[in-house]
């Protein structure tokens, strides 16, 4: 299925958010996730099922003022 990851369309076979992060290369990274605009805590990622056209944001620590 096709999902939008950080603004870019990606093809994924993952059924849930935890599996998608592994597949997309985020394994072991310090990131926070939001699915369709809602924060998904790390401990709920495996329970967050993905659907066609879902919008996923994967954010990490960055410089800030």
């Amino acid at each position, binding site marked *: 299925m096709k999902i939008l990851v950080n603004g870019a369309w990606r093809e994924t076979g993952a059924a849930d958010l935890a599996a998608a992060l592994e597949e997309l290369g985020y394994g072991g990274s310090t990131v926070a996730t939001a699915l369709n605009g809602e*924060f998904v805590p790390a401990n709920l990622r495996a329970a967050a099922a993905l659907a066609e056209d879902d919008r996923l944001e994967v954010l*990490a620590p960055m410089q800030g003022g």
Partner: protein
Amino acid sequence: MLKVYDTELRSRLMLGTSRYPSPAVLAEAVRASRAEVVTVSLRRESGGERAGQGFWSLVRDLGVRVLPNTAGCHSVKEAVTTARMAREVFGTSWIKLEVIGEDDTLHPDVFGLMEAARILCGEGFQVFPYTTEDLVAADKLLAAGCRVLMPWGAPIGSGRGLNNLFGLKALRAHFPDVPLVIDAGIGVPSHATQAMELGFDAVLINTAVANAADPVRMAEAFAQAVEAGVAARQAGPIEPRDLAVPSTPVIGTAILR
């Protein structure tokens, strides 16, 4: 000592981590500033590059507290969601809450700010709202549960110093017991000294240090400026007056006409 929420800080200077020429210069500038708090943000991470992981490792090695921001958020929902994500990633309930209302000046949207602050304080966040010098907005942010306010000196990155001196003095006088941190607009160390002389509790600097020709030296200059301002405030500055007052004793002046 400055107490913000339940944390005591020795340094009155907080430093932003953005726009430095290199990570090494950033690290050196943080050390030179003697800041105990640095601001950070959350941005999109690429699964291939993982740029954020290296930055986070560098910040953790500095041994300072982090104050995550919600920079770039224009709505209550964006700011609240970003704050929740930041709490998980950075492991802190501190959040520098920004809800931007206008893009040319990055003017805070104080209405959205209040709503977001109310939600986040209710969820146990310790909110540092980036606001204006507006007294009514300040009062409502405190009512929403904020225990610190971060009024702007001037628009972010403008380097204009304390734009509305009267408004900032009124804010200080109106809330004598609330920690007030001047956030944004400081351009040179004398601006920071002025803020501390007026009785503000701390300043947050980013662009003025990061974009200086020598950021490390400028960080040191700001550290000294803040310390000078604090000392001056404690020492009790004189009031300005319109006419001259001779500083040398008049009695005993020779008549040599």
